């Protein structure tokens, strides 16, 4: 797999951000609440995609198990909501426990009575789990395809565990959040959903700034160094294990935040968040948007998912074909993703091919040199 380093020009980034912010501001007024809620969900997926871009696009770690951390964040949020809304149920514990004859709250639910603990748990727990898994894997120098397989195996372990634990976390049914209460309102109510949309939009922007800060400067350069030539980084005196653990942990934390936001907007968290296809889709969003661009991850996550819901409404069952086709298109024709293609003069080349635009008259090499000169 060839990685090129894409630096989006300031102009492109600016245009895209103006479009995103205009969309976010306009959306609550022009979209019905059902659509707004969908958009909010997809925006929350952009945060997990940013994490995937950090570990894959920048550091070269293709994780197929981000669903673990996404679901953990979702469960943390749902456990808090369930337990604070359980006063009218027998034993003051969430209703589902009654179905399985559980009278006492399992010990690990206790800390989720605290809103502050829960607010931290949403990102700290997934980050810690990611850090632990990452450290063990990276210390043993497992990389490439083996790393991907291992993360997928871990995903399946988590999926099966959560699926089977009815008495602890309601197993395959998951935890519902839409009928729970937050700030004296139903989480599923329209006003709450509108608020979640704003929170999500702000957090996407915050996550982007955070990711940008992580990859800029020398820390980001080491990540790119690890991606392109890990032994060389090692012989220069850096310990790649620590760097990879940190970035994997950051991606885990972002996935947790994303999962929590997704949960409160879709009304339920269940082991379905940890299915294999869903984690692979996260990678596809980033691949289509453009690896190593950060902005591409956000656009990929939002547009692909929005397209998915529109297409599925119009032509049920056709989405899988479209998604598959999209992935094949990106792998064969747009290896740098859509943003990478735009940045790499893709549109002009396409127009030239159809004779709609004149060819460049200078030598290609001169053109390249000019471009570099302009970037300085």
């Amino acid at each position, binding site marked *: 797999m060839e990685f090129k380093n894409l630096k989006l020009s300031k102009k492109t980034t600016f245009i895209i951000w103006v479009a995103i912010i205009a969309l976010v501001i306009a959306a609550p007024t022009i979209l019905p609440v059902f659509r707004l809620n969908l958009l909010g969900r997809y925006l929350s997926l952009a945060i997990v995609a940013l994490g995937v871009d950090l570990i894959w696009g920048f550091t070269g770690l293709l994780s197929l198990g981000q669903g673990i951390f996404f679901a953990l964040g979702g469960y943390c949020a749902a456990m808090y909501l369930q337990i604070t809304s359980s006063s009218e149920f027998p034993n003051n514990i969430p209703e589902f426990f009654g179905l399985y004859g559980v009278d006492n709250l399992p010990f690990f639910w206790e800390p989720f009575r605290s809103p502050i603990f829960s607010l931290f748990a949403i990102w700290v727990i997934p980050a810690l789990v990611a850090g632990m898994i990452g450290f063990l894997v990276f210390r043993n120098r497992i990389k490439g395809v083996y790393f991907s397989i291992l993360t997928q195996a871990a995903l399946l372990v988590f999926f099966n565990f959560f699926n089977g634990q009815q008495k602890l976390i309601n197993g395959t049914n998951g935890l519902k959040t839409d009928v729970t209460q937050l700030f004296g309102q139903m989480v599923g109510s329209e006003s709450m959903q509108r608020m979640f949309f704003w929170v999500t939009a702000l957090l996407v922007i915050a996550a982007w700034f955070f990711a940008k800060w992580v990859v800029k400067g020398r820390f980001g350069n080491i990540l790119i160094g690890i991606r392109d030539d890990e032994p060389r980084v090692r012989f*220069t005196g850096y310990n790649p294990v620590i760097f990879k653990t940190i970035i994997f942990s950051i991606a885990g934390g972002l996935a947790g935040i994303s999962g929590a936001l997704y949960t409160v907007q879709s009304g339920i968290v269940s082991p379905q968040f940890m299915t294999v296809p869903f984690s692979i889709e996260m990678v596809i969003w980033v691949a289509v948007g453009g690896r190593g661009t950060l902005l591409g991850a956000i656009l990929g996550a939002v547009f692909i998912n929005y397209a998915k819901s529109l297409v599925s409404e119009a032509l049920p069952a056709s989405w899988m074909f479209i998604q598959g086709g999209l992935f094949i298109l990106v792998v064969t024709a747009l290896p740098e993703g859509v943003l990478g293609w735009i940045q790499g003069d893709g549109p002009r080349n396409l127009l030239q091919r159809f004779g709609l635009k004149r060819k460049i008259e200078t030598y290609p090499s001169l053109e390249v040199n000019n471009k570099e000169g302009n970037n300085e």
Partner: protein
Amino acid sequence: MNNKDLLNLIDITVSFEGFLALNKLNLNLKKGELRAVIGPNGAGKTTFLDVITGKVKPTKGEVIFKGKSLVGRKEHKIARLGVGRKFQSPRIFENLTVKENLEISVTTPKSPLNLINKSIKDEQLNEIDRLMKIVNLAQKVDSKAGSLSHGQKQWLEIAMLVGQKPDLMLVDEPVAGLTDEETDLTADLLKSLSGENTVVVIDHDMEFIRRLDSNVSVLNQGTVLCEGTMETIQKDKKVIDVYLGRPED
């Protein structure tokens, strides 16, 4: 072994599933020495570097560097102790600019916290400027390292090696693919580095080795065949048989 020695390799044996890449190799390096290592293909030159830098663990034997054993230490720890390595084909970070490459090498401490929290120190920036002037890359500061010519890449990697400020520099085939003029400049550069640094140069190019004007160790079949100045080894019969007498070099 005496305490003026920077590096001692004692009876190093490396066995790859029975094949002896190194066989009871002994080699001592004094502080400030410039040493050339030559040998035919498969003599174990690169394995010899792999053992010192921790990439390969010797089956038997000891590596003593500044009085400490290096055997069993991780690569990055050995690098931090002061062993720097330049690879055979230029290994630079092609997606980063020349300056970013050098930043990676001069940065200390090499911890994530330092990298993410603090900006680069002024003296390190000055060091980068100095290095770029030495290797004639000052005009390419912000170019992607991948866009450099082969010779420039070799030099950038040498600059990165120097920037690490290692006590021991291991340089593997620094002039492969360079023009004659570049080769001469590289020889002068390496000579100027020794004295303050200890430099080991591995190469095939006899003219280049001659220009280094240093002690030469000849490796053959994983062991040191002969050591001495270029003149001595050229007269050594064993060396002529295995290496110099060959038609291709």
